[in-house]
C-alpha cells in the first residue's frame, strides 16, 4: 500500500493513502475534537468541530473526511483552527443548557471536556435558550432534546448498524430535533442501548442508569459480557462493590464498538446479596461451618472412601479454569462425564451492520468452553430437566454452579456423597453433604471461550462474598491433595494446566491473551456445531 507523508502540528507522520486527517493526527497522539464522526459510522462532516487549518486550502477543512495528502501542512492546535473551534463551541452553547450538575453524562461528556479545555470561560449569549424538554424514546432510552448537539450519530447508528431506521431529524435550524416515528419508538430494537454510548453529550441517557451514579465515581474493570456466548468485550462499571452498568469495550474481532440490550440489561444478578458465604458441612448433628481447611480436609477423606459411580453437573457460566479444574477432579475420582444445562434463546439476533456481532442462542458465556472440555449439554432450552440420571445417583454427585431451580428439594438425597459448589443458596441442594461457596465471574479473574472459539480474559470487579473462593482454587486444591501435588496458585497456573490437557488451548499463554483475547486452535470437530 502506498503511503503519504504530511506534517501535522509541526510533526511529520506517514500514513497509508486514503487515511483521513483525523486518523493521521491520532497516529501522533493528537486528538482532533469531533462529534459527528464515529469510526464505525459514515462521516457526514456536519458538526464542524473537527475543522483544521490546511496550508494552501481556501478554507478550514473537516479533518474527518479530508484525506491526507503528500506534503500537506496541517495545524490542529493553533491560530485559525483553535479560533474556529472556540467559535463552534460557542455556537453549541447558544442552546445547550448548562445543566451539568443534573446531567448523567457529566464527567464523560465531550462538550464539557472540549469547552473546558478550549472554550470561552464565559458565554456572551443573552437570548433565552430554546427548550424541548425530554422525551421517552422507548426501550431503555431517554432523550433530553435541549442537550442534543445534532451530531446524528444515533440516527446513523440506527440506519447503518441496526438497519432499522426508527430515528430521524425533524424540523430545521435551531428547531431541529431527533425524534422517533410516531409512538413506535425504540422499544423493539435490541441494539438501542448503543445510541446512549455513542451520544457525545447527555441527550440520550439510559433510564436504568438515570441518576444512579456519577461517571467519575465508577471504576471500570475490563471484562467479558456473561449473557451470551458471543462474549462481547465489556467494562463493568462499579461503585461501592456494586455493578451499575455494562459498557462495550472495543474489540473489532468480536463486538466492534457495540453490545446488545439483552447483555447490557442483565447485570443485577451480579449484585445479588443472598450468597453462600461460608463452606458448610452436613454431619449427623446438622450443618456446621468448619472453615475452608476443615471442610476441604473432611471432603478429601470422604472422596477417598467413596463408593459407586461419580456424576457431575457443571455450568456454562463458569470460566475455563473452573471447568478445567472441575473436569480434572471428576476424572481423578473416576467419573465418566460432565453434563451442563444452559438456557438457549429461540434464535440469534444479529446486528445487521456488523459482520460478526449477534446475540447468540446460548445465553451463557462459556458453552463453547464446556464443549471443548467434552461436557455434554442436557435439559431443555430453558435449562430445566435433563438431570434424572444424575438425581438418581447413589454414588458421588458433584454440582458446580447450577442453581437447580427446577429440581425437587430431595435432589441428590440418594447419593452417598453430594457436593454442591455454588454462588447462591439453592433449595435443591438441601441434601448436600458439602456446600462450598464459589465466586461469580465478576469476583474472580479467568477466561471464557466464546462462540468463535476465542479465549478472552476477564478481571475481578467486585470483592468476593464472605469466604467464597474461585472454583478453580477450591477444585484445584482438592485434586492436588488427592494426587499429592501442589495446588494451582493462580488463574494463570490453572489455565496452563488446562492448556496442557486440552489440544484446543495448546500453546496459549494466559498472560499473552491480552485485552482482546486470542483465538483457540480450531477444534477438529465441535460437538453440535452451530
Amino acid at each position, binding site marked *: 500500500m502506498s503511503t503519504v507523508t504530511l506534517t501535522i502540528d509541526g510533526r511529520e507522520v506517514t500514513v497509508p493513502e486514503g487515511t483521513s486527517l483525523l486518523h493521521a493526527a491520532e497516529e501522533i497522539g493528537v486528538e482532533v475534537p469531533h462529534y459527528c464522526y464515529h469510526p464505525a459510522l459514515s462521516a457526514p462532516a456536519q458538526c464542524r468541530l473537527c475543522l483544521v487549518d490546511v496550508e494552501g486550502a481556501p478554507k478550514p477543512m473537516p479533518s474527518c473526511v479530508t484525506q491526507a495528502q503528500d506534503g500537506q501542512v496541517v495545524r490542529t492546535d493553533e491560530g485559525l483552527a483553535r479560533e474556529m473551534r472556540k467559535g463552534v463551541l460557542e455556537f453549541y452553547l447558544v442552546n445547550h443548557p448548562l445543566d451539568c*450538575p443534573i446531567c448523567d453524562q457529566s464527567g464523560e461528556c465531550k462538550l464539557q471536556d472540549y469547552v473546558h479545555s478550549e472554550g470561552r470561560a464565559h458565554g456572551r449569549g443573552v437570548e433565552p435558550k430554546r427548550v424541548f424538554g425530554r422525551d421517552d424514546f422507548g426501550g431503555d432510552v431517554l432523550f433530553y432534546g435541549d442537550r442534543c448537539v445534532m451530531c446524528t450519530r444515533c440516527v446513523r447508528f440506527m440506519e447503518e448498524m441496526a438497519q432499522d431506521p426508527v430515528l430521524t431529524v425533524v424540523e430545521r435550524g435551531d428547531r431541529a430535533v431527533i425524534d422517533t416515528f410516531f409512538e413506535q419508538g425504540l422499544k423493539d430494537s435490541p441494539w438501542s442501548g448503543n445510541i446512549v454510548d455513542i451520544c457525545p453529550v447527555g441527550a440520550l441517557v439510559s433510564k436504568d442508569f438515570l441518576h444512579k451514579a456519577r461517571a467519575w465515581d465508577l471504576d471500570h474493570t475490563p471484562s467479558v459480557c456473561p449473557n451470551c456466548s458471543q462474549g462481547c468485550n465489556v467494562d463493568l462499571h462499579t461503585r461501592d462493590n456494586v455493578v451499575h452498568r455494562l459498557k462495550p469495550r472495543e474489540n473489532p474481532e468480536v463486538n466492534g464498538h457495540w453490545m446488545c440490550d439483552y447483555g447490557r440489561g442483565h447485570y443485577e444478578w451480579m449484585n445479588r446479596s443472598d450468597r453462600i458465604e461460608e463452606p458448610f458441612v452436613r454431619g449427623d448433628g446438622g450443618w456446621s461451618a468448619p472453615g475452608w481447611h476443615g471442610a476441604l480436609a473432611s471432603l478429601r477423606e470422604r472422596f477417598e472412601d467413596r463408593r459407586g459411580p461419580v456424576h457431575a453437573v457443571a455450568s456454562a457460566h463458569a470460566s475455563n479454569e473452573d471447568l478445567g479444574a472441575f473436569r480434572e477432579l471428576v476424572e481423578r475420582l473416576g467419573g465418566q462425564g460432565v453434563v451442563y444445562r444452559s438456557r438457549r434463546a429461540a434464535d440469534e439476533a444479529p446486528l445487521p451492520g456488523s459482520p460478526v456481532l449477534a446475540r447468540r442462542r446460548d445465553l451463557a458465556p462459556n458453552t463453547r468452553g464446556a464443549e471443548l472440555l467434552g461436557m455434554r449439554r442436557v435439559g431443555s432450552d430453558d435449562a430445566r430437566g435433563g438431570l434424572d440420571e444424575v438425581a438418581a445417583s447413589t454414588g458421588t454427585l458433584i454440582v458446580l454452579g447450577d442453581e437447580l431451580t427446577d429440581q425437587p428439594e430431595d435432589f441428590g438425597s440418594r447419593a452417598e456423597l453430594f457436593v454442591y459448589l455454588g454462588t447462591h443458596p439453592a433449595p435443591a441442594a438441601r441434601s448436600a453433604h458439602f456446600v462450598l461457596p464459589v465466586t461469580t465471574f465478576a469476583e474472580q479473574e479467568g477466561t471464557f471461550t466464546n462462540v468463535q472459539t476465542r479465549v478472552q480474559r476477564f478481571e475481578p470487579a467486585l470483592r468476593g462474598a464472605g469466604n467464597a473462593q474461585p472454583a478453580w482454587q477450591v477444585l484445584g486444591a482438592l485434586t492436588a491433595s488427592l494426587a499429592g501435588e501442589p495446588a494451582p496458585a493462580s488463574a494463570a497456573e490453572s489455565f496452563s494446566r488446562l492448556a496442557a490437557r486440552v489440544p484446543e488451548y495448546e500453546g496459549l499463554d494466559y498472560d499473552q491473551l491480552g485485552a482482546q483475547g486470542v483465538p483457540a486452535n480450531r477444534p477438529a470437530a465441535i460437538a453440535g456445531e452451530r
Partner: protein
Amino acid sequence: MAISVKVIRRPEAARSSYLRAALKGMSLTFRHMVNPRKVTRSYPEEPTELHPRWRGTHRMEVHADGRPKCVACGLCPTVCPANCIRLVGGEDDQGNRYPIVYEIDEFRCIFCGMCQEVCPVEAIHVGQHFENAEYTRERFVYDLDRLMEQEHPVTALWDPSDPASE
C-alpha cells in the same frame, strides 16, 4: 587549690518581703473591680458573636415550596476531603433530580467549607453555629430533614462585594 568562701548578703527586708508583690497584684485586682472594660462573657446568657467566615455545622437551603435546593449532582461527596457526605440521587414525581439520601457525618467533617464552595446551586452551606451537643453519637449524622431544619446563619466564604479578594 585553696578553698575560698563567698559571702552572700541577705537582701534587705524591703526587697525580700512578698508583701510588696502581693499589694501590687491586689491593686490590679481592685482596679479591675471598678474598671468598666470587661473581657469575660456570661455565656450562655450572652451569646457569642461569630465571625462571618466561621465554619460550623451544615445547613441545607430549601425552596419556597419546602423542597431541598440540592440537585444531587454529587460534587460535594466528590470534593469532600473527609469523605463524610453520603448521597444517593433520584428523581421526584415532577422529574427533578433530588437527593433521596443526603447525610453528613459531622464527626468526620473537618469544616473546610469546600462543599459550600463547590455547590452549583448553593444548597449546602456550612453555618455560623457551634452549639451541637447531643446525648448520642448517632445524632451527629445529620440527615436531609435535619439539615433542612437548621436555621442558623450560613457562612460567608468570601466578601460578596469583593469575591476575588482583590
